[in-house]
């Protein structure tokens, strides 16, 4: 469903941008409060719930035994998928996965995969015969804006708490999945002509293009995505990249603190 964008909303957002203000009183680079809960889903081998403003997202990790790809006989696999089901918002319709769902899942997938936080060879049980397939499923329950960051955070937090269910599959004892890093996503949307961090639902409705940046522990880029209609300048990117760096470090601490509990 294409959402109706009232002209007054775009006008208001443009006016606020001039005064360096936002609808909900936040500063340009200020995020909403984030709460993270892990180990919250019975039956998932790793799980997390993220609440970011009015956005609520769950992620669950499952394992399966499979035969490795012929060209990588000693490597397991990782797959991350997202579902934007109609539960999450009036605007989502039932049916096969939408391009939006697929984009969301793939952007999160790339950030985790390319950070190298999972050693694919550690997922091998018998080379050429038996490896672990790790699947992260992300479920958006309420879209209150910026589901990308919420999904990215839920996915990595769930992965970092996952227990490999070896006993259930008769291949040894259960053990904690080894995850070497904490890739974190930071998302920006152009609202009223300038970029802001962590857009709310209304800011997304009345905004333009968005940029998603996933950074690893060392501050390296692991995934970038520009979505929706619009263009940006290198100078604009340099500015949000700087902000992303700070925000990702803060959120990485949040994940670490949650694990410490």
């Amino acid at each position, binding site marked *: 469903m294409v959402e109706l964008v009232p002209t007054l909303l775009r006008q208001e957002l443009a006016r606020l941008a001039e005064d360096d203000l936002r609808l909900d009183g936040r500063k340009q680079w200020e995020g909403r409060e984030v709460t993270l809960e892990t180990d919250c889903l019975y039956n998932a081998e790793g799980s997390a719930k993220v609440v970011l403003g009015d956005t609520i997202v769950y992620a669950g990790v499952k394992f*399966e035994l499979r035969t490795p790809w012929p060209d990588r006989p000693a490597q397991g696999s990782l797959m991350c998928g997202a579902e934007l089901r109609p*539960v999450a918002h009036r605007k989502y319709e039932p049916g096969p996965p939408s391009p939006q769902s697929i984009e969301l899942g793939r952007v999160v997938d790339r950030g985790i995969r390319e950070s190298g936080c999972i050693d694919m060879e550690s997922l091998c049980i018998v080379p050429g015969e038996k490896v672990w397939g790790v699947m992260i*499923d992300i*479920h958006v329950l309420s879209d209150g804006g910026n589901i990308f960051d919420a999904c990215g955070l839920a996915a990595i937090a769930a992965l970092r708490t996952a227990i490999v269910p070896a006993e259930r599959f008769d291949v040894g004892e259960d053990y904690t999945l080894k995850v070497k890093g904490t890739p974190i996503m930071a998302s920006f949307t152009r609202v009223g002509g300038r970029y802001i961090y962590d857009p709310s639902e209304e800011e997304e409705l009345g905004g333009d293009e968005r940029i998603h940046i996933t950074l690893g522990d060392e501050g390296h880029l692991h995934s970038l995505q520009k979505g929706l209609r619009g263009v940006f300048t290198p100078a604009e990117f340099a500015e949000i990249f700087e902000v992303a760096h700070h925000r990702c470090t803060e959120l990485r601490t949040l994940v670490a603190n949650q694990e410490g509990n």
Partner: protein
Amino acid sequence: MGGYGDVQLLRDDGLRLDGRKIDEMRPVEIEAGVLPAADGSAMVTHGLNVAVAAVYGPMEAHPRKIQRQDRAVIDVRYNMAPFSTSDRIRPGFNRRSREISKVTAEALESVVLVERYPRSKIRVEIEILAAEAGTRCVGLTAAAVALADAGIPMRDLIVGVASGKVEGTVVLDLDKAEDNYGQADLPVGILPNTGEIAFLQMDGDLSPDEFNLAMEYNFKAAAEIHEIMVDALKRRYEGGEN
């Protein structure tokens, strides 16, 4: 329903594997209004089951062919999250979820005053986040609370409950092992105030006497769950008159 297998479901002291009595249900917790984006919502935890329901509407029924000139249609989607079961479920509709969605919609249409909203639809989305036997009942309970939370007029709520039979004994509210190895399962949707039944399924083997006993247990549990539903709805708005 499989056979007994090697599993002993009733202990020598007459209690069940998880320590419950024959006619004791698993603990139930309900919270209304959990999803900010929805018009109404609820989360129900029943044993280890977790179901979330969201309601959107009434809105114009699309596509046109599903429109009814004299009433609203209730469009239910029951879905199990991929991580909700011990073996991952591939995303997407399957025959089981389609059937459950259909009978759940029909049950809800029996209590919602659908004639108030001609040509419209009310979307009910039921998501099972964790499954431990009895998810259709938990989903139905969640849907009823979410509809009430959305302010949709209904002549009663519906409570989803199930009884069944294990090792020749009728028991209330089957857990996972009992569901897998038991002999019968009787999930129903009960209107708590009128005592009518809007949802009924059964599989397995029950004698008429066993059926009556199972229904007796179901009504007892429905009364208990109804109190929890009412409490959840009231809790959301405590703090004074509107």
